[in-house]
């Protein structure tokens, strides 16, 4: 694929000399009388188009199809030639549309049959065309700027389509010689210029057109190389619809187009609304859309190509295109060699543009892959699917078409902003329900939803503070917390322990964002001031931190952001231990996790200090018991706890549990039930 092939630049040179005002001698009936009104009235005489009109409408049709299918990077420069060259538009993208060209053509008007033929020549236009080809397009400029020292890789090729009425074959040769000479001269000029480019390759397409019924004075000639830079071909075509057909063939050749006819489209009849007839509509599109079937029936390929209806204003065409523009799709099927049918393409519109989608008709190697539930993480059942869905909606993208600038004046790239936001929103984001308390609490939402913001308003800060006060209030009232209890036994942690876990987690969340702004800092200050924390704990944490930092390296969530994350590490480790226990405890089949986003029962969570020690159960803790717990906990991380002891109740473990489970019996002893 080359961007800067010959079809990047097309110059139309249309003859505007007096003889082009001649009739094409093909009549058009325009006064079609309706039956019951025709009595006694003679229809108006048919009219005929001039050679000029035929040339202009055929070239407009060429441009229409080209713009429909390639709205960008395929450019047209339109020149008309009489006593001089009139360049109707430029290479800029804004000039590339039918309306501009039509308006410019209207300003030129039809050729004046009374003008002096001696003064007029197509040569003026051809010289201007070569000049135009030397001019750099914005795409070429952009590519050259981007490639820097490799700027010479940007090619400059083009095509000149000249529609004229030539006098003879030697006249045609004279035109070709003129183009060749002009290219030679202009390439010399361009060599010494920064804003001109030398023409590397020019395809001259000379179309001699003449009135229907006359003999052509010019013979057809296939493409021939006149020089390494210039090739030329000559088409001798009768005017009227023959010329239009020729240009339709040429636009297909020049832009690698192919035609697809949609057959048997049922359409309601205007007069008889309850009947429908079948119509055919022919569409043009890039030929790649057919490659699939030409190469091999087995080839997998997919793409979307813009289309242009051949007969754009016909009723079937506009019926189909309106159907598509209204947001509906059409699937196309075609017969296979075997006689069966296969859905091969789909027509549908996106933003007012219709595309022909190539569907993969072959069977894919990606068929029947393993389900995601069979892979890593596939057997975890309590993913925060709904929460992540909410996260995705908050991180949806939207176009920012107006340039935006940062404070330092540099251009802001919206996509980089999107990445920044994802970074902020994921600093603390536990993936499973049993790994979090705060995200299971409605009361935390007002804080959690604003703390991730880059900048907070005073109102946001106030809401965060209110959230914190509310939590303090809840604690004072001893409200229960939704602490996850996956795989735990007994009642789980006490209420005050639950709150400690909750406050620690909340602190982790807020700390991950304190560097965002002073307001974030203020939220942390409020949190630290409000949260209840036994004085010993602070001390304990300080001493324990070093050791903990060394120990748990298995998890990386948010690790870059908090140096202070006592809660997280211990809880996460706990989580891993829990899951290991679960593995041993359950033999039942777990549902596919994506299909079961429901959280498991909210049972109390085992915590840090919940090693099965006797002290645990006995009221307020002494400093000694706190200290021994701490040591036990630290030690327990250095080795894997005996499964029996972990699963024991009152230090009594049931042996050979797995035998029962393997036999499909449910273990309900010790108050421990198989999950779900």
């Amino acid at each position, binding site marked *: 694929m080359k961007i*800067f092939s010959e079809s990047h630049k097309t110059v139309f040179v249309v003859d505007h000399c007096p003889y082009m005002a001649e009739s094409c001698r093909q009549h*058009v009936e*325009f006064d079609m009388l309706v039956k019951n009104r025709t009595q006694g*009235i003679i229809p*108006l005489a048919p009219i*005929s188009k*001039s050679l000029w009109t035929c040339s202009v*409408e055929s070239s*407009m049709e060429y441009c*229409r199809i080209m713009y429909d299918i390639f709205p960008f990077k395929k450019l047209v420069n339109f020149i008309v030639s009489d006593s001089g060259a009139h360049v109707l538009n430029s290479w800029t993208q804004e000039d590339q549309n039918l309306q501009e060209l039509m308006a410019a053509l209207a300003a030129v008007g039809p050729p004046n049959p009374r003008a002096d033929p001696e003064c007029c020549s197509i040569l003026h236009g051809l010289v201007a065309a070569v000049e135009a080809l030397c001019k750099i397009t914005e795409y070429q400029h952009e590519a050259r700027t981007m490639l820097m020292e490799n700027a010479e890789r940007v090619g400059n090729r083009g095509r000149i389509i000249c529609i004229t009425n030539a006098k003879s074959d030697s006249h045609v040769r004279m035109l070709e010689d003129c183009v060749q000479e002009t290219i030679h001269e202009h390439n010399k000029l361009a060599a010494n210029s920064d804003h001109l480019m030398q023409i590397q390759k020019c395809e001259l397409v000379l179309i001699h057109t003449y009135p229907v019924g006359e003999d052509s004075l010019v013979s057809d000639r296939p493409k021939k190389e006149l020089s390494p830079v210039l090739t030329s071909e000559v088409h001798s075509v009768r005017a009227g*619809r023959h010329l239009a057909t020729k240009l339709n063939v040429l636009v297909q050749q020049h832009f690698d187009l192919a035609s*697809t006819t*949609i*057959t048997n489209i049922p359409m309601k009849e205007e007069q008889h609304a309850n009947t429908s007839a079948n119509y055919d509509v022919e569409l043009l599109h890039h030929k790649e859309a057919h490659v699939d*079937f030409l190469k091999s029936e*087995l080839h*997998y390929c997919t793409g*979307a190509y813009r289309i*242009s209806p051949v*007969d*754009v204003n*016909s009723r079937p065409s506009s019926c189909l295109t309106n159907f598509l523009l209204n947001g509906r799709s059409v*699937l*196309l099927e075609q017969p296979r060699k075997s006689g069966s049918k296969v859905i091969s*393409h789909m027509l549908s519109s*996106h*933003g007012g*543009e219709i595309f022909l*989608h190539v*569907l993969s008709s072959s069977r894919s*190697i*990606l*068929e*029947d*892959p393993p*389900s*995601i*539930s*069979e*892979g*890593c*993480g596939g057997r*975890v059942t309590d*993913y925060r699917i709904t929460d*992540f869905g909410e996260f995705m*909606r*908050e*991180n*949806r*993208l939207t176009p920012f078409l107006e340039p935006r600038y940062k404070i330092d004046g540099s251009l802001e790239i919206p996509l980089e902003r*999107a*990445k920044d936001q994802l*970074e902020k929103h*994921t*600093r603390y*984001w536990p993936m499973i329900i049993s*790994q979090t308390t705060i995200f299971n609490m409605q009361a935390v939402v007002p804080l959690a939803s604003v703390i991730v913001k880059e900048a907070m308003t005073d109102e946001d800060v106030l809401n965060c503070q209110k959230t914190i006060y509310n939590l303090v209030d809840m604690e004072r009232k001893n409200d229960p917390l939704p602490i996850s209890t996956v795989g735990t036994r007994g009642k789980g942690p006490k209420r005050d322990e639950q709150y400690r876990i909750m406050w620690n987690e909340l602190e982790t969340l807020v700390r991950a964002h304190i560097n965002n702004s002073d307001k974030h800092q203020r939220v942390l200050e409020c949190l630290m001031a409000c949260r209840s924390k036994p004085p010993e704990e602070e001390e304990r944490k300080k001493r324990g931190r070093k050791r903990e930092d060394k120990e748990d390296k298995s998890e990386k*969530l948010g690790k870059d952001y908090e140096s202070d994350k006592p809660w997280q590490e211990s809880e996460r480790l706990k989580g891993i231990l829990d899951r290991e226990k679960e*593995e041993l405890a359950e033999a039942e089949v777990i549902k596919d996790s*994506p299909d079961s986003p429901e959280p498991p029962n909210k049972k109390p969570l085992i915590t840090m200090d919940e090693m099965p020690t006797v002290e645990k159960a006995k009221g307020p803790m002494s400093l000694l018991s706190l200290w021994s717990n701490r040591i036990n906990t630290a030690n327990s991380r250095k080795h894997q706890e005996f499964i029996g002891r972990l699963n024991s109740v009152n230090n009594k473990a049931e042996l050979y549990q797995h035998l029962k489970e393997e036999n499909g019996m449910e273990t309900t002893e010790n108050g421990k039930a198989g999950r779900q």
Partner: protein
Amino acid sequence: MSRSVTAVLIPCVWPFSSPSTQGITVLRGDGSREEQFIMPTVVVMDVSLSMTRPVSVEGSEEYQRKHLAVHGLTMLFEHMATNYKLEFTALVVFSSLWELMVPFTRDYNTLQVVLVTDGCLGIGRGSLRHSLATHNQRSESNRFPLPFPFPSKLYVMCMANLEELQSTDSLDCLERLIDLNNGEGQIFTIDGPLCLKNVQSMFGKLIDLAYTPFHAVLKCGHLTSDVQVFPRPEPFIIDEEIDPIPKAINTDLEIVGFVDIADISSPPVLSRHLVLPIALNREGDEVGPGITDDTEDENSANQIAGKIPNFCVLLHGSLKVEGMVAVVQLGPEWYGMLYSQADSKKKSNLMMSLFEPGPEPLPWLGKMAQLGPISDAKENPYGEDDNKSPFPLQPKNKRSYAQNVTVWIKPSGLQTDVQKILRNARKLPEKTQTFYKELNRLRKAALAFGFLDLLKGVADMLERECTLLPDTAHPDAAFQLTHAAQQLKVASTGASEYAAYDHNIAPLQTDFSSSSTERM
């Protein structure tokens, strides 16, 4: 090139549905067969007599070249079984005839052909030497199998060293095979003496070239997962002239944001790939994407990996539930999308499609770099009730079929436009606005095409209509018809003051017009 297609009008949401599937038998290195998921490789094994030539290996039992080949293939198959589990393989053996040992039962895209031979090409009719010599004499019905009619790579594994092959014209013949396959493929020979070790190193090179799994890290901010992307994404050449270096995708796949499926709406893609979460153990070997394994050890390793929360699973679940895709950056100005792909058996998986490289792969999303977070917008572009969308972007210029262009190439096009004017002329003054709208449309096109005779013709027609007005007609009708005809006539002179393209013929202001203005 023209083709007829039958249209069936069906609303659809491709590509978020998938066709039916079926299992496939794979030949394993140890000769066992098993049902698996695969990518196509055909192994073509030479079992002619010359393959039984002994290889002298000092101080060990005698090997034949065939044994070396089996050893190398075992290594290749074992590698696939461990690291390339979705591989799809068939085995063909040949000597003077061929036999398909294990057939493909499905279609394929790019096929890899591994030809194992000792480079003894045989003699006489049907030998490679003879086939190549007579290559030009073949007819279309008797076509040489190369190049294959589908994209393919041909790897020739020679159970011989370079010197041996060069002593005859074998190497030249094999090189011609690669040439005939449009240069797609490579010849491997044994370095040094023929022994198990050197055969292994030769197959090692093939594995490195063609069967290395593509490992990447999927990232969404701080949420990450190690993944294998299958099949391997192929490097892509953006423009052979401007940027001829093939571009490969990053091994960091960075999610940049999310878009609703309805908004991304059937985008064209270069290729599709499964994104399989993998667990990397300490040595860096993967535990595997979790497909059922036969050994106990792997089983338990997979079980553990299955129970560690993985971002891919979370992402997949939410994408599926929400009906969204994640937009992922694959490289500088190269993007793709992640989505949940479900098959008919209620299995679903995380799939990644690659868009064509470039700043704007999907016109209806606009430039990718211009997509930003909704929180930066003044108001939520999706609406407070999630009932709007900023997509699709509308192009600056409408396409011809959406803008009511005028085309008179076929007489019917012109006749339809004239009839529209006439129909409205007969319903004046009710249809005054539509009448002038159609009239001005025709006038503009006629001026652009320099078709002034048409303006005169239509003017004559309107004047005649005026004379045909029934007695019951509203008096305003006659005034408007006369006015319109007169305006067309002056435009048909081409005189610049009347023939300006942007000028529109306005309805005549009459005493009646205030009471008869059309309510549109």
